[in-house]
Structures are given as structure tokens and as C-alpha cells.
């Protein structure tokens, strides 16, 4: 195989590293999306036998939209494990999943990342984090008179 062909093949089968921000996202729907990238089904060159899966780095897995204070690594990991195809490739594909609780990612992993996956749902703003002036000039149908005292 000539040098050009070999370089071309590396480029075509290049393994991508994706970043996924799991803040306020449903872990099970996210798992549906992540499993496609781990299996390589997001590429037109996909074939079950050709190992063309990508790496997925999940950040903010502590803030997934799921009650519970325990570090949610196991839920998201279990969800992805559950959604992956039930075959021998699953272990290898799970190895390409990296989950971190906060958005701090070790440098050797972050330098590999070359693309970002879109979130499934827009991130809502928490009530206590709405900026002050927006609350003040939000249109009101009715307001108490200035000197009214709320006991």
C-alpha cells in the first residue's frame, strides 16, 4: 500500500474524541446518542467488523437531570452499557467512554478532544440564578403599590 494510500486510510479511519456536556441532560437519552458514537454508527464508513468507534468524554455527569446526590458515574455508565449492542464489542466500546463528575478533565485527555456533541435539551436557568435586573423588568400584569407593606 503506497504511502499516500496509507495516509488516506488513517485519515478515513481516524478516531475522533468527542466531548459531551451532560449538564441537565437525561442520562438515558444521552446514552442513546453516546452509544452511536462509541459504535461508530455516526460514520458512513461504519461496518460492525471494522472497529471505527470514537471516544466520548462526558463532563458534568454530577449535574445530570436525575435526583440523587451520589456521584452519578454509575448511572450514566450503566445506561450506556445497557444501550450498547449486546455483543463482544461492548466491552471495548465501553473502554472508550470517559466520564467525569465536574468539567475538569485531565490534560492528556482534553488535548485529544477535537469535536463536541450537541446536548439533547437546552439548559434551563435555575430560579435562584436568574439575573436580578431581568427579574425586575419582567412584564407584570399587576403590582402592589409602592408603600404597601407585606406582613
Amino acid at each position, binding site marked *: 500500500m503506497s504511502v499516500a494510500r496509507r495516509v*488516506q486510510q488513517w*485519515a*478515513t479511519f*481516524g478516531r*475522533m474524541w468527542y*466531548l*459531551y*456536556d451532560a449538564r441537565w441532560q437525561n442520562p438515558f437519552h444521552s446514552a442513546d446518542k453516546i452509544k452511536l458514537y462509541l459504535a461508530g454508527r455516526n*460514520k*458512513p*464508513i461504519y461496518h460492525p467488523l471494522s472497529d471505527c468507534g470514537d471516544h466520548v468524554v462526558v*463532563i458534568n455527569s454530577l449535574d445530570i437531570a436525575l435526583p440523587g446526590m451520589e456521584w452519578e458515574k454509575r448511572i450514566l455508565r450503566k445506561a450506556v452499557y445497557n444501550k450498547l449492542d449486546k455483543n463482544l464489542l461492548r466491552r471495548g466500546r465501553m473502554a472508550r467512554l470517559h466520564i467525569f463528575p465536574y*468539567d475538569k478533565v485531565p490534560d492528556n485527555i*482534553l488535548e485529544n*478532544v*477535537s*469535536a*463536541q*456533541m*450537541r*446536548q*439533547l*435539551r*437546552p*439548559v434551563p436557568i435555575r430560579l435562584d440564578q436568574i439575573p436580578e435586573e431581568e427579574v425586575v423588568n*419582567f*412584564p407584570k400584569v399587576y403590582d402592589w403599590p409602592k408603600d404597601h407593606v407585606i406582613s
Partner: protein
Amino acid sequence: MTSQTWNRFWGSTFVKAPLQNGVGRYVQQLQRITFKFCKTHGGSRGMRDFIEKDLIEFARMNPGVVVYLKPRRHRSSCLKAEYLNGGEEYISAHKQSSEEIKKWVEYLRTQSGYSVERLRKYQHTDRPSIQGPWTPWMHRDQCINIAEYPQEELSCAVKREKTATQELLEKSKIFVGVNNSS
């Protein structure tokens, strides 16, 4: 036929033509054909008929093919073809009529010497791609290579419909606008 037996006895191959046959010019691949038959035996009657009726026509139509006749006593008739790339094909013509033999001779004439195997693909190309094969970076914006991750705008979900709050704010702006102007 299970695949192992298939591979054990016959195997599988890809489409190929000898020495880029047909790129510049088409060259007939049949080099030599031998008709073996018995003069007396009934099983070679079809072969003898073929030789009387059609062999001359065959030889005239295919000047590049060497034709051998091999009468052998008490041996069943058969056809033996040899091709330019060294391939050989043997077909028994025992008790076959001259029409059948005519068909098998035509089959041998149009072959190219490779053994008959299961084709894995029905197409072959030396230049699969003209625009360059797909790569993960081909359809992507080039700035993703130099972007600092995590990137907010790359990550935010695609908003389709507007939320109630946004609509309320837009309506209120119009409403306030009307109040000020009137």
C-alpha cells in the same frame, strides 16, 4: 452448501480480468480446445455429430483458437480447454447431444481461464474515489481543530420552538412599544 464446505471445495474470489483485458483491446482468452471422443461408442455420438456439423464453423469463427481432435477407443467423450493465463477446464460430454456440446463449447469459448468461484463483490475498481474518501473532518467546520474545549456554542442544544417566557417577552416589548408611541 455451508460456507466451510464451500470454502473447502470451491473458495471465493473477487472479480478480475486477465492482464487488464478489455482496457486497450479485448483479446479472446481461449488458447486451445481438445475434443476427445470414441469412434464406435454410443456415448460419443453427440460429439461425432458436433464434429461433422459445427466444428468447421467454430474453427472459422475463432481463428485464434487451436482445435485438437483426439479419437480414443473405449473412452467417454470430453472437452478440454486451455486458456492464455494457464487455466484449464475439463467438461465431460458423455452421452450428450450435439446441441448440448455446442452450448458447452460456447461456454468454454467465452471464459477467461479463472476457476469458477463464488464472487464476493460483483464489481471491481482500481479508483474507488474521485473526490477523495470520506474523513471525519471533511464535512466539519475547520475551526473545531483549533477550538478550546469545552465550547459552549458547539454544545448547546438546537432550539426549535421558542419557550413561553421568550414569547411573553417579545409580546411585552411590542405592547410597551405601542404604549410609548400612543
